[in-house]
């Protein structure tokens, strides 16, 4: 416990986050019912003609048709979730894909925030080092003379006690 206390808190935090992320990303969600699959897939798709709603939420007939079609595809059991999403996106256009792909131009959506985070971290690191260096002033001759005088008792002895 004493050893752990010596660790910088941010190292502990990073390890905890990494561990939780690893657990979360590899955790098996378990078997899903067909209705759960329909729900998950329809949440990944945007309503083709209404702004800001997923197919899961929208009451528009086109979204109802997509939900019904997803239900049929799931019941047929031949296509994966990704394949179903891809077929709907192909039919209605890329705008219907709520979660951007991790390849091609759309990958920028994922890459840019990560790049910004790295740049910001590096920038902060550099700034902190610079500030620390600025704070660590090297004593000059005047400082040394002042310290010497203080050690000799000239300064401290001359100070009056403010409580008096």
């Amino acid at each position, binding site marked *: 416990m004493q050893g752990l206390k010596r660790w910088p808190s941010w190292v502990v935090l990073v390890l905890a986050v990494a561990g939780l992320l690893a657990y979360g990303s590899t955790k098996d969600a378990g078997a899903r019912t067909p209705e759960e699959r329909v729900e998950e897939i329809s949440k990944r798709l945007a309503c083709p*003609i209404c702004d800001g709603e997923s197919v899961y939420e929208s009451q528009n007939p086109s979204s109802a048709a*997509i939900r019904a*079609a997803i239900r049929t595809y799931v019941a047929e059991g031949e296509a994966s979730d990704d394949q179903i999403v891809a077929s709907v996106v192909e039919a*209605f256009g890329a705008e219907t894909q709520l979660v951007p792909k991790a390849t091609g131009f759309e990958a920028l959506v994922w890459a840019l925030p990560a790049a910004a985070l790295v740049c910001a971290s590096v920038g902060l690191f550099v700034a902190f080092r610079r500030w620390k260096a600025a704070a660590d002033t090297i004593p000059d001759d005047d400082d040394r003379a002042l310290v010497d005088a203080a050690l000799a008792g000239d300064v401290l002895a001359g100070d009056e006690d403010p409580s008096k």
Partner: protein
Amino acid sequence: MSEVRRARVAPIVVLVVAALMGGMLWVLASGDGGDDAEAGIIDSHLLDRAAPEVRSSLLDGGSFELSRRKGSWVVLNFFNSTCVPCRAEHPELVKFVEQQASLGPLGAEFYTVVQIGDDLDEVRRFFDERGGDWPVLTDENGEVFVDFGVAQVPETFIIDPNGVVRVRWAGVIDAVTLAQLVQQLRNATGL
């Protein structure tokens, strides 16, 4: 960082930030608003490709399979009885079907596909009142609309005798335009 170096780097940083912001503005400005209500031929992932398999029930009983219509020009009209443009378009479709019937076996076959959620009794009443005795397909599992990528009605697809999608028309179409399109495709493909 020295003052001189800082003075050199600052304009570059400003330029990079300005370029990024300009790029984002350009993407926003050139984006498709997605609200194009004008009727006309539009792109489709199906153009010049085999039409999706359509197996459906007919409104008045029986079944329909698109693949069995090969050998004929087929026009699929996507419809909802509550849609105002669909109602406006209907008399033109009646004229088109009559005109194609006058061509005998060479005439295009015409089918209406009813959008999911539409009241089928209302659809029957609609056709009884406004005419149109062509087959009407239901799409209770949404597959026909989704396979053709139809989000808004009315839309019309023209499929050639080989089962290849040739035209996708969004919005209201009139009888003359539709007949001309079919004829132009006949001439162009020799089918």
